């Protein structure tokens, strides 16, 4: 029964959707302070390479590798965040785009560490590691009526599901707090925020660092999901793809990028028939979104509409996470 219900293909697709959700949230955090980054693919690659190299060359346990990778990427994000502070709007977008490209070229050329364009393969696979771990505990998938590949896909999916829910929970909590209010006010008016006593340097770097950390985290997960990475996985197109999640879904509320990631990662699976036109549709979609719904599909009004019946009871709680812009 259970074994017939679990189809690795659908779990696979769902797993990548979850990964994209984390990426969407990562750009949303940075956008939340009005900073547009086209460098998230670069951060992702730093996370992916760090974890891959640590687990492969230094036998660091997978979990530790992912955590170190995320923290390290966050640290790089903070370092980049300082000069980025001086830049706004398109300048920041182009500078971060440049950062991503420089990182990619660096990884291509730093062969001793990254194996260049050939990429790193044989990275410990999250699911297969879980399988061998549970087998070492004397558990085999057969005991619950699953085939090995079903078990692997299911385990990976569940781990990602828990992680994504954790990430979403974290940032919803954060946005409904002093921190979230500071982010929102900076997005709306930096100078006024500063005059109201908000340390904009700190919060902008915090947001940039958090976005980078999360992107690095997603990158590390990506490395352990595909077991193979190469610099070309993290180019300009990836950066734009991540941005599209937030732009299409909406960057005002956290549900926007989540919806964007779900919708845009599911669509190709349904549209495999017309896959030839897929990217043309993406492009047209961006133009149409900007013209008719620049705030993205999910905005505060949509969220309010969903939660309307409870609005009155919610009086006591106050934050900005759900009502950043109109």
């Amino acid at each position, binding site marked *: 029964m259970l074994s017939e219900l679990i189809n690795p293909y659908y779990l696979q697709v769902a797993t990548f959707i979850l990964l994209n959700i984390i990426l969407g949230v990562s750009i949303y955090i940075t956008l939340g302070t009005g900073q547009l980054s086209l460098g998230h693919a670069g951060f992702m690659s730093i996370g992916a390479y760090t974890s891959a190299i640590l687990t492969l060359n230094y036998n660091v346990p997978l979990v530790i590798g992912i955590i170190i990778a995320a923290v390290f990427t966050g640290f790089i994000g903070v370092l980049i965040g300082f*000069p980025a502070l001086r830049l706004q709007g398109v300048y920041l977008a182009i500078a971060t*785009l*440049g950062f991503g490209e420089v990182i990619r*070229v660096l990884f291509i050329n730093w062969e001793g560490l990254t194996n260049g364009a050939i990429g790193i393969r044989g990275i410990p696979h999250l699911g297969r590691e879980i399988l061998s771990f549970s087998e070492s505990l004397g558990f085999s998938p057969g005991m619950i009526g699953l085939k090995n590949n079903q078990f692997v896909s299911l385990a990976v999916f569940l781990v990602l599901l828990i992680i994504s829910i954790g990430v979403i929970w974290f940032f919803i909590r954060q946005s409904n707090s002093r921190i979230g209010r500071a982010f929102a006010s900076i997005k709306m008016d930096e100078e006024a925020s500063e005059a109201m006593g908000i340390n904009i340097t700190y919060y902008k770097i915090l947001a940039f660092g958090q976005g980078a950390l999360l992107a690095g985290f997603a990158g590390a997960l990506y490395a352990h999901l595909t077991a193979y990475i190469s610099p070309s996985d993290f180019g300009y197109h990836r950066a734009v793809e991540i941005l599209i999640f937030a732009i299409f879904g909406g960057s005002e509320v956290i549900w926007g990028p989540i919806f964007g990631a779900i919708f845009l990662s599911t669509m190709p699976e349904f549209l495999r028939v017309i896959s030839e036109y897929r990217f043309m549709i*993406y492009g047209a*979609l*961006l133009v149409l979104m*900007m*013209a008719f719904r620049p705030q993205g599909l999910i905005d505060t009004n949509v969220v309010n509409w969903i939660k309307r019946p409870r609005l009155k009871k919610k009086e006591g709680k106050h934050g900005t996470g759900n009502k950043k812009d109109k």
Partner: protein
Amino acid sequence: MLIEQLINGLTLGSIYVVVALGYTLVFGVLNIVNMGHGEIFMFGAFMGVIVTNSLGLPLYVAFLVAIIVTGILGYFLERFALRPLRGKEGVSHLAPLISTIGVSIFLENAAHHFFGAGNQPFRTSFSELNITIGSTTVYYVQILIFVIAILLMFGLTFWLSKTKAGKALRASAENLAVASLLGVNTKRVITQTVIIASAMGGIAGILVGIAFNSVNPQMGLSFGLKGLAIIILGGLGNVRGAMAGGLILGLSETFLVAYGNSGYRDAIAFIAIIVILIVRPQGLFGTSTSKSKG
């Protein structure tokens, strides 16, 4: 070798200049970075391929067709990706950036669809002509490209400062609302600007085609990103800056290959803009600051 590399660098640089001028013009007037410019440039190059190779028509027809087609593309870009955003309340200043990214994705994949993913040869008898001075061979194409870049720069400078249309354009660049109050038809000026900038992209496309005999759908992105780096380098909206930036980038890429490590060639442009943005955010020739909204 030095002289040969110098010529290589200048040729590449001149093409960068023509690409960058298109960006500069649009930014100067609209304060918008047109991310779709690279792809329009690529379409120009393909027009050249179709006219000279498939139809067997002479080169000047190719220029003409490329200018017309890219001009039309520019019009569509303005009409569908920029105009709807203008003057709309609550539209972030990043919206045009994103919608033009949309245009670039659309055009790149449309090109895949129509022209195929591979390289198309661009053969004209003109690209074979050369003169040899000493041990150095110079192709007429290389001279032509350099001359066109210079002409476009001076032409643009002259047009902006001396002609009525140009003055309207500059007035609009200063302040759209005021220009419109002063009786400048800003809508027309804006459309004109984008069309002219796109047509310049078309010219650049053909130049690349004859110079390198290589036209493919990905060239829009690689040249586009370089063009973007150049205008930051030279100062956004600055015509002379774009000129200098383009030549500097072309020369430094060539000399990095000649005397250094060719592996980092694609990184120079971006390392340069990161450095320049930190050290001198207004660009080499710019006067405005990075704080001005874009």
